[in-house]
């Protein structure tokens, strides 16, 4: 579905029609048709998993589409590599910038080009810096050119990256979550900057979770939901809450397993398993207080950069907090290492299973067994038969689809990898589980299985802290939802107010009513 409206500027710059892409049978992007006009800022919004990053990767040449076409200024093009997109004039500024930190700004900007030479064939450094300065100025940027690139602030790095792309005659700039790690004044600076660029005829595709910024900046906005483009239209035509509604409104309500009985109904006073009081760590989170009781799933929502994972790592014991206190199972909790947590009955499933959880070349059996290594060893030696049995048990209990315990985990599907990592910790029978994005990037079936596991855990009296950016999940699975924003806990939602809309508004900094704050 696509609803077009008349564009602005000088006509259609870039057009995709029928573009779609699947991964391992899961359709990440349904056939999509979209036009981008020169001189406009097109906001692209949608939740995690809605298909934004797939679309970006298709446009920037990192991925090939399964079907569909793209055209540039009316001429059909095939983008088979990032280089071809750059040559065409499409520049992507990723969240993770690639740069040479120890070289100067000027050198980074002109790295691939010829440098101005002096009379002896030597590099004319002042001319190089002047040229870099010129490019920055043309892009409206006032960053010093002769300092080490690594010493720029995050926003300055972004500005320089944008200026570099513009100087390469980029006509379409794709910005992927540009303000995710920026504080308010820096974000504001970037936005003003982008407005200035737009006036020069460059098209900007602004992909962001920060709805207030999208509303302020963009001329048109496109909404992706579950891989489908559900809305494209002028930004003026809708307000914040309508935008949110389009992002989250679903034809069918997703059903989340709920076998457990909320404590309010039984009248019991469940034990507080984990209590955090005023926990602060400079630069990460501030004054956070929360409780996780037995039998409940507490959701922790927020945008990227809100500080949720940082908080979780501190609770898990990977580094200490600067101030505040914690209690685990009623006793003061000052973990000195992750192993302390594991032995005390608290587990943490990290955010990125590939980077933080797995060794892709290892087999399934050792990946599973390492979670219970202390239970399986006697005098330092593993009881192999017992290990075999436990591993087989884990594979069947958690329905990990594999060819056997010797399958290399890198070849498992995302869902099964996640189930394996979860199984590894669950086998320890922990009291408290802190799960960071447990269903990110996995298929619907595996998601449902993991959800029912969480529900069973809560029903059995354990406590779960569910960190998730998946709105239906965090709202549907949790007994109550805490929302973090820029390092602080800004809202606690439950009962009637526990809706996706409320959560998103609190996380994105929108006050009730849908106006940007």
């Amino acid at each position, binding site marked *: 579905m696509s609803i077009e409206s008349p564009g602005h500027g000088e006509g259609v710059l870039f057009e995709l029609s029928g573009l779609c892409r699947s991964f391992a049978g899961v359709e990440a992007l349904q056939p999509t048709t979209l036009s981008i006009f020169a001189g406009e800022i097109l906001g692209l919004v949608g939740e995690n998993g809605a298909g934004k990053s797939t679309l970006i990767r298709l446009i920037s040449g990192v991925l090939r589409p399964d079907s569909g076409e793209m055209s540039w200024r009316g001429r059909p093009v095939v983008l088979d590599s*990032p*280089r071809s997109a*750059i040559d065409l004039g499409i520049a992507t500024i990723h969240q993770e910038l*690639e*740069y*040479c*930190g*120890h*070289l*100067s700004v000027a*050198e*980074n900007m002109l*790295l*691939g080009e010829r*440098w101005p030479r002096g009379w*002896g064939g*030597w*590099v004319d*450094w002042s001319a190089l810096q002047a040229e870099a300065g010129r490019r920055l100025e043309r892009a409206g940027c006032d960053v*010093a050119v*002769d*300092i*080490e690139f690594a010493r720029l602030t995050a926003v300055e790095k972004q500005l320089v990256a944008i200026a570099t792309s513009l100087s390469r005659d980029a006509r379409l700039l794709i910005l992927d979550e540009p303000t995710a790690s920026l504080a308010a004044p820096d974000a504001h600076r970037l936005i003003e900057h982008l407005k200035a660029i737009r006036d020069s005829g460059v098209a900007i595709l602004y992909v962001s979770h920060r709805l207030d910024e999208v509303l302020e900046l963009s001329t048109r906005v496109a909404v992706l939901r579950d891989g489908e483009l559900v809305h494209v239209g002028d930004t003026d035509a809708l307000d914040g809450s309508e935008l949110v509604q389009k992002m989250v409104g679903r034809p069918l309500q997703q059903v989340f397993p709920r076998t457990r009985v909320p404590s309010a109904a039984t009248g019991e006073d469940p034990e507080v398993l984990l209590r955090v009081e005023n926990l602060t760590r400079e630069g990460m989170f501030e004054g956070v207080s929360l409780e996780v009781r037995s039998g409940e799933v507490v959701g922790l929502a927020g945008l990227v950069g809100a500080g949720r994972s940082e908080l979780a*790592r501190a609770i898990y014991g*990977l*580094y200490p907090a600067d101030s505040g206190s914690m209690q685990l199972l009623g006793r003061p909790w000052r973990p000195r290492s992750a192993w302390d947590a594991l032995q005390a009955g608290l587990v943490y499933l990290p955010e990125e299973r590939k980077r*933080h959880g797995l060794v892709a070349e290892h087999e399934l059996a050792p990946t599973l067994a390492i979670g219970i290594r202390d239970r399986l060893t006697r005098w330092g030696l593993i009881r192999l038969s017992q290990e075999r049995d436990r591993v087989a048990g884990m594979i069947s209990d958690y329905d990990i689809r594999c060819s056997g315990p010797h399958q290399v985990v890198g070849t498992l599907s995302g869902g099964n990898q996640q189930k394996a990592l979860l199984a590894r910790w669950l086998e320890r029978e922990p009291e408290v589980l802190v799960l960071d994005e447990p269903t990110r990037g996995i298929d619907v079936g595996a998601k449902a299985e993991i959800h029912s596991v969480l529900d069973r855990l809560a029903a059995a009296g354990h406590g779960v802290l569910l960190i998730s950016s998946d709105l239906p999940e965090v709202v549907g699975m949790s007994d109550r939802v805490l929302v973090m924003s820029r390092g602080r806990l800004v809202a606690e939602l439950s009962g009637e107010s526990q809706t996706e809309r409320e959560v998103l508004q609190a996380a994105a900094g929108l006050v009730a009513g849908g106006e940007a704050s």
Partner: protein
Amino acid sequence: MMRLRMTAPVLRRMAWLVAGNMALLAGIFACLLPGDTLAGAVSRLGTVLRDTPRNMAPEMLAAIGLTAIIWTGAIDLSIGSVLAVCGAVFAMGYSHQAHPVLCFAGCLLAAGGLLATNGLLVRWLGIPALIVTLAGLAAYRGFALVLVNVGVPGFDGNLTVPEEIYRVPGRDWASGILLAAVGAAIVFELTCRRPRLWLAHGSSAAACRLQGLDLPRLAISAFLFGGLYLGLGGILYVSNQQTIDPARMGLGFELSVIAAVVLGGTNIFGGEGSFMGTVLGVLFLYLARQALIYALDDVHARQAFEGALILAVIGFDCVLHRGEHRMEELK
């Protein structure tokens, strides 16, 4: 502002090394003073300093070459054995009455060729430079021995070269050649684009690729540069000796060269460093050795002190970065 195109930590290290070198000189002077007049001590210090370029030259030139290689994120452990091959080639030329210039040219070509081979193997086989050059450490030593046994008629373990003409580069011209080569390297790093590209390669190969740079050419050019300077160092080394003994030539050479480069502020993983820092690092290690000779009567304790010194400097540098590195990797 980036002074001299260098980052702040590198400049700081250079400052420490300058201070350290002066302290060492003062220390050496202090050791020479007892039992002698002031004028006598000064003249002995002068003798030490006069001999310094000649003795330090091979190591300094090799270190400059190795610095470029390390900048790109690679390493070369085989330079000692390459030196042995230089000696073997020289011996072969000498024993066939080749003109001295040809003999020395052979050294240069041998070094350049072998280091280029290292670079090419790393590229073609996709094996870490550490392994390729570790293999080279062994293989080139054997190659040198084979060469010298096959190519030099009647070779019996070592070759004596009495003619004065072969002494000229290493003994008479050493200071001049060293000054010129070091000067050229420093001018090179201050005024040319290539060294900056080497640093970029070590800093972020991905960024270089995105900017359209030719990564293999870049990496191999660093090895070629290394080979050039190593060859030059080889020429000076070979002509500073009376006898050529390929079995023992350059044994352990790579260790002190790497230590000097790391001491000089170049990051072992690449991306940061300077030739000037390397020069100061080599000088520091050399003066430290000299100071140990004068301060310590015990001949045998010298290497231990040298090793302890290297470890202390490197350890200190690493511990400074430990905290932030540990936090970063969790993300």
